[in-house]
């Protein structure tokens, strides 16, 4: 059965800290891995990682895909209170009708 597991489930840090969020997957016919940030209701897209693009960076956020270890990390440096959110990881498959497998998310809280 396909599954995506995120860790930790929740995390509390102080402003300025660096955090690393983990996503591991067991999915057949992998196409890509996606990270989303969910602050209130709608998840917003952060990164998509594929075999041809295993590292992405945007400002203080960066993500790496390790296809050998079947995992990905999302790093946030110099955290700010605005980074407080749920971070969702999803894996996109190449086959089947419905193709997205979501993890349960990591809830990050950044204290001032």
């Amino acid at each position, binding site marked *: 059965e396909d599954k995506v597991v995120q860790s930790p489930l929740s995390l509390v840090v102080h402003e300025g800290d660096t955090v690393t969020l983990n996503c591991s997957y067991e999915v057949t016919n992998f196409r890509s891995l996606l990270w989303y940030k969910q602050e209130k*209701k709608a*998840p917003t897209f952060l990164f998509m990682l594929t075999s041809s693009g295993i590292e992405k960076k945007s400002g203080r956020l960066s993500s790496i895909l390790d296809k050998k270890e079947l995992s990905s990390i999302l790093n946030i440096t110099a955290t700010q209170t605005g980074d407080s959110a749920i971070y969702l990881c999803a894996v996109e498959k190449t086959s089947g009708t419905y193709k997205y497998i*979501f993890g349960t998310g990591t809830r990050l809280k950044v204290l001032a």
Partner: protein
Amino acid sequence: GAGVSQSPSNKVTEKGKDVELRCDPISGHTALYWYRQSLGQGLEFLIYFQGNSAPDKSGLPSDRFSAERTGGSVSTLTIQRTQQEDSAVYLCASSETSGRGTQYFGPGTRLLVL
């Protein structure tokens, strides 16, 4: 439109009543997805539409749940005889086509069943 829209944003109903939730996907997106997110939980897949193909209903939790997509665009998720455990945020997402990258999510409908 510029993004995925959903209505209503919030819905409070009494147990046993039917509710309809609406989703307007991004214009041109052929794939549309419904998810449910209960408090503190991840996204639970409900149903998926791709173009004119038969929808993938494998995530619907019971026969009280159904969804339609008219004209390949707007979708309605209907919950009949609502139960308290149906209380959740219902998220809709669309993508250009399934298996082609990211989904774009709507703001969701927060459903509360009293």
